[in-house]
């Protein structure tokens, strides 16, 4: 049986718009969700996480910074938000050795930067977000939800007031 899956793509034309998309996503989060971020250096992954944190009611998004060196950041909010960056890790086994599984709880949301480098550690039911630069500040952002929780999050996001250019929906 194949798992339920939904996809949707937005175009953001500025860092602020990427933040706004993240904020809408942060408002739609579901407990226990894993969000895997994919995108090259400078694609705006940390900027998107700042938005997610704002939407999740984290008190001061200035504190949402890159965990490349520190590996895991923790921000209390509506859900406890774990911000993980695997840029320095060699693979999924190292992420597991860091105690990744212990972060995944019903009342937490775990966002992983460079998640495609640790694919086997990410649960099969997850929300994947890919950021592709199209110019200096514009990005194509594709959300790909597998499983009930991730699809609920994506549906909520779609139903919300989001003044961003939606490019494509459910291309399959």
């Amino acid at each position, binding site marked *: 049986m194949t798992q339920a899956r939904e996809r949707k793509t937005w175009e953001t034309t500025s860092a602020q718009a990427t933040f706004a998309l993240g904020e809408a996503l942060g408002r739609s989060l579901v407990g226990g969700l894993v969000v895997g971020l994919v995108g090259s*250096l400078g694609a705006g992954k940390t900027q998107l996480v700042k938005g997610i944190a704002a939407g999740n009611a984290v008190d001061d998004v200035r504190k949402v910074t890159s965990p490349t*060196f*520190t590996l895991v*950041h923790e921000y209390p909010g509506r859900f406890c938000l774990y911000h993980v960056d695997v840029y320095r890790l*060699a693979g999924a086994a190292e992420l597991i*050795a*860091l*105690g990744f599984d212990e972060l995944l709880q019903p009342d937490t949301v775990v966002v992983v930067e460079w998640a495609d480098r640790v694919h086997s550690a990410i649960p099969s039911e997850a929300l994947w977000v890919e950021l592709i*630069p199209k110019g200096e500040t514009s990005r194509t952002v594709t959300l790909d939800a597998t499983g009930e929780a991730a699809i609920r999050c994506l549906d909520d996001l779609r139903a919300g007031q989001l003044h961003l250019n939606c490019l494509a929906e459910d291309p399959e």
Partner: protein
Amino acid sequence: MTTILGIETSCDETAAAVVVDGKDVRSNIVASQVDLHRKYGGVVPEIASRAHIERLDAVIEEAFDAAGCSHGHIDAIAVTNRPGLVGALLIGVTAAKTLSWVWGKPLVAVDHIEAHACSPAMGLDQPPWPAVGLIVSGGHTSLFRIDQPTSITLLGATTDDAAGEAFDKVAAILGLSYPGGPEIERIAQNGDPMAVDFPRTMLAPNSLDFSFSGIKTAVLYHVHGQGRTTGGLEKLSPQDIADIAASFQRAVIDVLVRKTMLAICQTGLPTVVLGGGVAANRVLRSALATACSERDLDFHAAKMAYCTDNAAMIAALGYHLLVSGDVAGLDLDAYATGAVPRR
């Protein structure tokens, strides 16, 4: 004479040190993984808690041996309990609690970033406080007001990437080896710092916060072309790469120096101290020293051995906390986030 054993396991390094009276470093042992980093081409082979467990006993023993003393000579154990990876911190905290109980010595909890902020005082005859402290590393870029080691206030911090992270990621963009910070500094010696005018992100006019993600992206697009992330590096000559490295380094250091001087203007303090892994960068040290001497300010940079993560700075700050009566119980826990309040 008060002797402290310091223990540090907050991230990559397993470290222990013996320090007398908060400034006289008798030993400073760091089980560095940098050689392993190089061997594995830029990624950390194992940053698991297991690495700390395997190393910590031997590192503590080595710290005692190098200091020529044993646990009978120490007056307290100081341990990093925040901020960092909770699993990694817990190894040091659990070891420190156990030793505190077995040896009957008091336990002191130390904030890793506060310890970096106080690290420039180690080895000085006179404490440099009050001072503005600039702490720059791979994980942190912060300005502090340090009235005393036990009274530290955060004035500003990075809102995205730390300066050291920008050095490392720009080194990756330029195809340089890991660790990237020293490589950028090395090849920048042959480059023209005025060759490329990279952005100096200052944020709001009076802000003491930092932002270094924009310059990382600016270097990326300078190398590959606007909106492109690949394909440009092969077209650059070694001189082009040296010029980019020098221009990037100059831009980051300009921002660090300007913000530090802004903190001096806002606080009216007479002294600047510099610590953290990027404080090992000689161009930064000399730029800050020049800016300070132009304004008749005292300037103290942490000694090279205390720039990167180490336990001597933990023992040093632990001494001041012990003297002020700030002793932890055996219920001490580890925390991912720091305790330093914002102004």
